[in-house]
Protein backbone atom coordinates (compact mmCIF):
# COMPACT_ATOMS: atom_id res chain seq x y z
CA UNK A 1 0.00 0.00 0.00
CA UNK A 2 3.01 2.29 0.50
CA UNK A 3 3.70 2.29 -3.25
CA UNK A 4 0.07 2.92 -4.20
CA UNK A 5 -0.70 6.37 -5.55
CA UNK A 6 -4.46 6.16 -5.66
CA UNK A 7 -7.26 4.71 -3.57
CA UNK A 8 -10.60 3.23 -4.54
CA UNK A 9 -12.53 6.23 -3.28
CA UNK A 10 -14.88 8.43 -5.27
CA UNK A 11 -13.26 11.82 -4.99
CA UNK A 12 -16.55 13.63 -5.66
CA UNK A 13 -18.49 12.01 -2.84
CA UNK A 14 -15.69 10.82 -0.53
CA UNK A 15 -17.31 7.37 -0.40
CA UNK A 16 -15.53 4.10 -1.07
CA UNK A 17 -16.07 2.77 -4.55
CA UNK A 18 -18.55 -0.08 -4.73
CA UNK A 19 -16.74 -3.03 -6.25
CA UNK A 20 -18.14 -6.34 -7.43
CA UNK A 21 -15.52 -9.06 -7.25
CA UNK A 22 -15.77 -12.01 -9.62
CA UNK A 23 -13.63 -15.06 -8.97
CA UNK A 24 -12.95 -17.40 -11.86
CA UNK A 25 -14.46 -20.87 -11.57
CA UNK A 26 -11.03 -22.41 -12.09
CA UNK A 27 -9.82 -20.66 -9.00
CA UNK A 28 -11.86 -21.77 -6.07
CA UNK A 29 -14.72 -23.82 -7.48
CA UNK A 30 -12.52 -26.42 -9.08
CA UNK A 31 -9.82 -26.33 -6.45
CA UNK A 32 -11.69 -25.30 -3.31
CA UNK A 33 -8.91 -26.24 -0.94
CA UNK A 34 -6.46 -23.98 -2.78
CA UNK A 35 -8.59 -20.84 -2.68
CA UNK A 36 -7.41 -18.15 -0.26
CA UNK A 37 -10.25 -17.76 2.22
CA UNK A 38 -11.97 -20.98 1.18
CA UNK A 39 -14.36 -21.81 -1.62
CA UNK A 40 -17.48 -19.89 -0.70
CA UNK A 41 -16.06 -16.45 0.16
CA UNK A 42 -12.59 -16.41 -1.41
CA UNK A 43 -10.60 -13.55 -0.01
CA UNK A 44 -8.05 -13.06 -2.75
CA UNK A 45 -9.84 -10.16 -4.53
CA UNK A 46 -11.74 -8.94 -1.49
CA UNK A 47 -8.43 -8.44 0.29
CA UNK A 48 -7.10 -6.27 -2.54
CA UNK A 49 -10.26 -4.20 -2.76
CA UNK A 50 -10.44 -3.56 0.97
CA UNK A 51 -6.74 -2.80 1.20
CA UNK A 52 -7.11 -0.19 -1.53
CA UNK A 53 -10.07 1.48 0.17
CA UNK A 54 -12.96 0.01 -1.78
CA UNK A 55 -16.19 -1.59 -0.58
CA UNK A 56 -17.04 -5.12 -1.65
CA UNK A 57 -20.60 -5.83 -2.79
CA UNK A 58 -22.28 -9.15 -1.99
CA UNK A 59 -25.22 -9.78 -4.32
CA UNK A 60 -27.30 -12.93 -4.89
CA UNK A 61 -25.57 -14.15 -8.06
CA UNK A 62 -22.08 -13.47 -6.76
CA UNK A 63 -20.94 -17.07 -7.21
CA UNK A 64 -22.63 -17.63 -10.54
CA UNK A 65 -20.36 -18.56 -13.44
CA UNK A 66 -19.88 -15.87 -16.13
CA UNK A 67 -20.49 -18.54 -18.75
CA UNK A 68 -17.07 -18.71 -20.38
CA UNK A 69 -16.17 -22.38 -20.32
CA UNK A 70 -14.62 -23.45 -23.62
CA UNK A 71 -17.12 -25.60 -25.39
CA UNK A 72 -19.90 -23.16 -24.52
CA UNK A 73 -18.36 -20.03 -25.89
CA UNK A 74 -16.20 -21.20 -28.74
CA UNK A 75 -19.09 -22.87 -30.53
CA UNK A 76 -21.47 -20.20 -31.83
CA UNK A 77 -24.56 -22.35 -31.28
CA UNK A 78 -23.83 -22.50 -27.56
CA UNK A 79 -23.01 -18.84 -27.09
CA UNK A 80 -26.59 -18.01 -26.13
CA UNK A 81 -26.16 -20.01 -22.96
CA UNK A 82 -22.88 -18.24 -22.16
CA UNK A 83 -24.27 -14.75 -22.61
CA UNK A 84 -27.32 -15.66 -20.52
CA UNK A 85 -25.06 -16.53 -17.57
CA UNK A 86 -23.37 -13.13 -17.67
CA UNK A 87 -26.73 -11.41 -18.11
CA UNK A 88 -28.05 -13.14 -14.98
CA UNK A 89 -25.12 -11.69 -13.05
CA UNK A 90 -25.60 -8.19 -14.44
CA UNK A 91 -29.33 -8.19 -13.69
CA UNK A 92 -28.58 -9.27 -10.14
CA UNK A 93 -25.81 -6.73 -9.42
CA UNK A 94 -27.56 -3.76 -11.07
CA UNK A 95 -29.68 -2.66 -8.06
CA UNK A 96 -26.52 -2.52 -5.95
CA UNK A 97 -25.07 0.17 -8.29
CA UNK A 98 -21.51 -1.09 -8.51
CA UNK A 99 -18.78 1.25 -9.77
CA UNK A 100 -16.67 -1.55 -11.25
CA UNK A 101 -16.14 -5.30 -11.50
CA UNK A 102 -12.82 -6.87 -10.50
CA UNK A 103 -11.83 -10.32 -11.76
CA UNK A 104 -8.94 -12.75 -11.41
CA UNK A 105 -9.41 -14.93 -14.47
CA UNK A 106 -8.29 -14.21 -18.05
CA UNK A 107 -11.61 -15.27 -19.60
CA UNK A 108 -14.12 -13.67 -17.23
CA UNK A 109 -13.24 -9.98 -17.73
CA UNK A 110 -13.31 -10.39 -21.49
CA UNK A 111 -16.74 -11.90 -21.14
CA UNK A 112 -18.19 -9.47 -18.65
CA UNK A 113 -16.85 -6.58 -20.73
CA UNK A 114 -17.87 -7.80 -24.19
CA UNK A 115 -21.25 -9.15 -23.18
CA UNK A 116 -22.37 -5.75 -21.93
CA UNK A 117 -21.87 -4.58 -25.50
CA UNK A 118 -23.60 -7.65 -27.01
CA UNK A 119 -26.56 -7.41 -24.62
CA UNK A 120 -26.94 -3.73 -25.41
CA UNK A 121 -27.04 -4.49 -29.15
CA UNK A 122 -29.41 -7.45 -28.79
CA UNK A 123 -31.82 -6.01 -26.25
CA UNK A 124 -31.04 -2.33 -25.93
CA UNK A 125 -30.23 -2.69 -22.23
CA UNK A 126 -27.17 -1.17 -20.59
CA UNK A 127 -26.01 -1.49 -17.00
CA UNK A 128 -24.20 1.05 -14.85
CA UNK A 129 -24.76 4.78 -14.82
CA UNK A 130 -26.10 6.82 -17.75
CA UNK A 131 -25.65 4.01 -20.27
CA UNK A 132 -21.90 3.78 -19.83
CA UNK A 133 -21.88 0.19 -18.56
CA UNK A 134 -19.95 -1.20 -15.59
CA UNK A 135 -16.18 -1.17 -16.21
CA UNK A 136 -14.50 -4.58 -15.86
CA UNK A 137 -10.90 -4.82 -14.71
CA UNK A 138 -8.51 -7.63 -13.94
CA UNK A 139 -6.51 -7.36 -10.76
CA UNK A 140 -3.34 -6.74 -12.75
CA UNK A 141 -4.96 -3.78 -14.49
CA UNK A 142 -6.24 -2.38 -11.21
CA UNK A 143 -2.86 -2.83 -9.54
CA UNK A 144 -1.29 -0.99 -12.47
CA UNK A 145 -3.71 1.89 -12.08
CA UNK A 146 -3.17 2.10 -8.33
CA UNK A 147 0.59 2.14 -8.86
CA UNK A 148 0.21 5.06 -11.24
CA UNK A 149 0.81 3.60 -14.68
CA UNK A 150 -0.74 5.40 -17.63
CA UNK A 151 -4.12 3.84 -18.46
CA UNK A 152 -3.37 3.66 -22.17
CA UNK A 153 -0.08 1.86 -21.49
CA UNK A 154 -2.09 -0.71 -19.55
CA UNK A 155 -4.35 -1.33 -22.53
CA UNK A 156 -7.63 0.18 -21.43
CA UNK A 157 -8.40 1.44 -24.92
CA UNK A 158 -9.42 -2.09 -25.93
CA UNK A 159 -12.09 -2.32 -23.21
CA UNK A 160 -15.54 -2.21 -24.71
CA UNK A 161 -17.06 -0.64 -21.59
CA UNK A 162 -15.31 2.72 -21.19
CA UNK A 163 -13.11 3.02 -18.07
CA UNK A 164 -12.94 6.84 -18.24
CA UNK A 165 -15.85 7.36 -15.77
CA UNK A 166 -13.98 5.16 -13.29
CA UNK A 167 -10.68 7.00 -13.83
CA UNK A 168 -12.47 10.26 -13.16
CA UNK A 169 -14.04 8.93 -9.97
CA UNK A 170 -10.66 7.80 -8.63
CA UNK A 171 -8.92 10.92 -9.88
CA UNK A 172 -6.45 9.23 -12.21
CA UNK A 173 -5.35 11.63 -14.94
CA UNK A 174 -5.47 10.47 -18.53
CA UNK A 175 -5.05 12.11 -21.91
CA UNK A 176 -8.13 11.49 -24.10
CA UNK A 177 -6.08 12.45 -27.18
CA UNK A 178 -3.62 9.62 -26.61
CA UNK A 179 -6.33 6.93 -26.42
CA UNK A 180 -6.18 5.82 -30.02
CA UNK A 181 -2.56 6.62 -30.67
CA UNK A 182 -0.19 3.69 -30.87
CA UNK A 183 3.56 3.63 -30.19
CA UNK A 184 5.24 6.54 -31.98
CA UNK A 185 2.00 8.51 -31.86
CA UNK A 186 0.52 6.88 -34.92
CA UNK A 187 -3.26 7.08 -35.23
CA UNK A 188 -4.92 3.69 -34.78
CA UNK A 189 -8.35 4.75 -36.09
CA UNK A 190 -11.59 4.71 -34.19
CA UNK A 191 -13.85 1.74 -33.43
CA UNK A 192 -17.44 1.88 -34.68
CA UNK A 193 -19.78 3.43 -32.12
CA UNK A 194 -22.15 0.98 -30.43
CA UNK A 195 -25.89 1.64 -30.77
CA UNK A 196 -26.71 1.96 -27.07
CA UNK A 197 -23.55 1.62 -24.98
CA UNK A 198 -22.00 5.04 -24.61
CA UNK A 199 -18.47 5.58 -25.63
CA UNK A 200 -15.60 7.97 -24.73
CA UNK A 201 -14.92 10.33 -26.35
CA UNK A 202 -18.53 10.87 -27.33
CA UNK A 203 -17.43 12.72 -30.37
CA UNK A 204 -14.88 11.16 -32.69
Amino acid at each position, binding site marked *: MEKGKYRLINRNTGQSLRVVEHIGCHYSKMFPSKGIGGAEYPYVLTGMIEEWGGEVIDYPERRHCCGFGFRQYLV*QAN*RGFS*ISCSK*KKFDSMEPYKPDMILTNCPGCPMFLDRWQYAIS*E*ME*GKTYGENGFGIPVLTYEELAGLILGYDPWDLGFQVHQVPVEPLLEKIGIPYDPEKKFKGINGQDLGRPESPSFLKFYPEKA
Partner: protein
Amino acid sequence: MKSFGYTISKDRQINFDANDFEITRLIDAVEPSIMLCMGCGSCTGTCSAGHFTEFNIRRIHTLIQRGEFDHLKQEIMKCMLCGKCQLVCPRGVNLRNLILSIHTALETFGI
Protein backbone atom coordinates in the same frame (compact mmCIF):
# COMPACT_ATOMS: atom_id res chain seq x y z
CA MET B 1 -31.57 -4.63 -32.62
CA LYS B 2 -28.62 -6.58 -33.95
CA SER B 3 -28.34 -10.31 -34.15
CA PHE B 4 -24.97 -12.02 -33.71
CA GLY B 5 -26.19 -15.51 -34.58
CA TYR B 6 -27.28 -16.57 -31.09
CA THR B 7 -30.00 -15.57 -28.65
CA ILE B 8 -30.21 -14.91 -24.93
CA SER B 9 -31.75 -18.03 -23.36
CA LYS B 10 -34.97 -17.90 -21.38
CA ASP B 11 -34.33 -18.36 -17.66
CA ARG B 12 -36.13 -21.54 -16.64
CA GLN B 13 -35.55 -21.03 -12.91
CA ILE B 14 -38.88 -20.66 -11.12
CA ASN B 15 -38.82 -17.12 -9.78
CA PHE B 16 -41.34 -17.65 -7.01
CA ASP B 17 -41.51 -13.98 -6.06
CA ALA B 18 -42.28 -12.90 -9.63
CA ASN B 19 -45.14 -15.36 -10.23
CA ASP B 20 -48.82 -14.44 -10.08
CA PHE B 21 -50.78 -16.77 -7.81
CA GLU B 22 -54.36 -15.70 -8.48
CA ILE B 23 -55.08 -18.86 -10.51
CA THR B 24 -53.52 -20.96 -7.74
CA ARG B 25 -55.61 -19.28 -5.08
CA LEU B 26 -58.82 -19.94 -6.99
CA ILE B 27 -57.99 -23.62 -7.49
CA ASP B 28 -56.95 -24.02 -3.82
CA ALA B 29 -60.21 -22.42 -2.71
CA VAL B 30 -62.36 -24.69 -4.88
CA GLU B 31 -60.44 -27.87 -4.00
CA PRO B 32 -58.55 -27.44 -0.70
CA SER B 33 -57.66 -31.14 -0.45
CA ILE B 34 -54.85 -30.43 -2.91
CA MET B 35 -52.83 -29.06 0.02
CA LEU B 36 -52.56 -32.61 1.36
CA CYS B 37 -50.42 -33.84 -1.52
CA MET B 38 -47.11 -35.36 -0.51
CA GLY B 39 -45.73 -35.86 -4.01
CA CYS B 40 -45.76 -39.65 -3.88
CA GLY B 41 -46.73 -40.05 -7.57
CA SER B 42 -49.31 -42.82 -7.11
CA CYS B 43 -51.76 -40.79 -9.17
CA THR B 44 -49.39 -40.36 -12.11
CA GLY B 45 -48.31 -43.99 -11.98
CA THR B 46 -51.82 -45.25 -12.63
CA CYS B 47 -52.98 -42.46 -14.93
CA SER B 48 -54.46 -43.67 -18.21
CA ALA B 49 -53.49 -40.54 -20.13
CA GLY B 50 -49.93 -40.75 -18.83
CA HIS B 51 -49.14 -43.84 -20.87
CA PHE B 52 -49.35 -42.23 -24.27
CA THR B 53 -48.90 -38.53 -23.63
CA GLU B 54 -46.64 -36.50 -21.40
CA PHE B 55 -49.53 -35.71 -19.09
CA ASN B 56 -48.25 -35.86 -15.50
CA ILE B 57 -50.90 -34.80 -12.99
CA ARG B 58 -48.48 -34.77 -10.03
CA ARG B 59 -46.12 -32.46 -11.87
CA ILE B 60 -48.93 -30.27 -13.19
CA HIS B 61 -50.52 -29.55 -9.87
CA THR B 62 -47.12 -29.06 -8.16
CA LEU B 63 -46.30 -26.45 -10.84
CA ILE B 64 -49.64 -24.76 -10.14
CA GLN B 65 -48.61 -24.39 -6.48
CA ARG B 66 -45.38 -22.76 -7.71
CA GLY B 67 -47.28 -20.32 -9.91
CA GLU B 68 -46.24 -21.90 -13.23
CA PHE B 69 -49.01 -22.22 -15.79
CA ASP B 70 -47.15 -22.74 -19.09
CA HIS B 71 -48.93 -25.23 -21.34
CA LEU B 72 -51.47 -25.90 -18.56
CA LYS B 73 -54.42 -25.52 -20.89
CA GLN B 74 -53.35 -28.04 -23.48
CA GLU B 75 -52.04 -30.48 -20.86
CA ILE B 76 -55.20 -30.53 -18.76
CA MET B 77 -57.27 -31.34 -21.87
CA LYS B 78 -55.51 -34.71 -21.97
CA CYS B 79 -57.21 -35.90 -18.78
CA MET B 80 -60.17 -38.14 -19.50
CA LEU B 81 -61.52 -37.95 -15.95
CA CYS B 82 -61.35 -41.73 -15.58
CA GLY B 83 -60.83 -41.32 -11.82
CA LYS B 84 -58.05 -43.91 -11.39
CA CYS B 85 -55.84 -41.30 -9.70
CA GLN B 86 -58.43 -40.52 -7.08
CA LEU B 87 -58.89 -44.20 -6.26
CA VAL B 88 -55.24 -44.64 -5.29
CA CYS B 89 -54.36 -41.33 -3.61
CA PRO B 90 -53.15 -42.17 -0.08
CA ARG B 91 -53.87 -38.70 1.23
CA GLY B 92 -57.43 -38.50 -0.04
CA VAL B 93 -57.01 -35.69 -2.54
CA ASN B 94 -60.14 -35.26 -4.63
CA LEU B 95 -58.31 -35.33 -7.95
CA ARG B 96 -61.27 -35.38 -10.32
CA ASN B 97 -62.62 -32.26 -8.71
CA LEU B 98 -59.15 -30.77 -8.89
CA ILE B 99 -59.01 -31.29 -12.66
CA LEU B 100 -62.46 -29.74 -13.03
CA SER B 101 -61.43 -26.79 -10.84
CA ILE B 102 -58.40 -26.26 -13.10
CA HIS B 103 -60.72 -26.07 -16.11
CA THR B 104 -62.91 -23.60 -14.23
CA ALA B 105 -59.95 -21.44 -13.24
CA LEU B 106 -58.62 -21.34 -16.80
CA GLU B 107 -62.05 -20.27 -18.04
CA THR B 108 -62.45 -17.68 -15.28
CA PHE B 109 -59.15 -16.08 -16.21
CA GLY B 110 -59.86 -16.30 -19.93
CA ILE B 111 -56.94 -18.60 -20.77
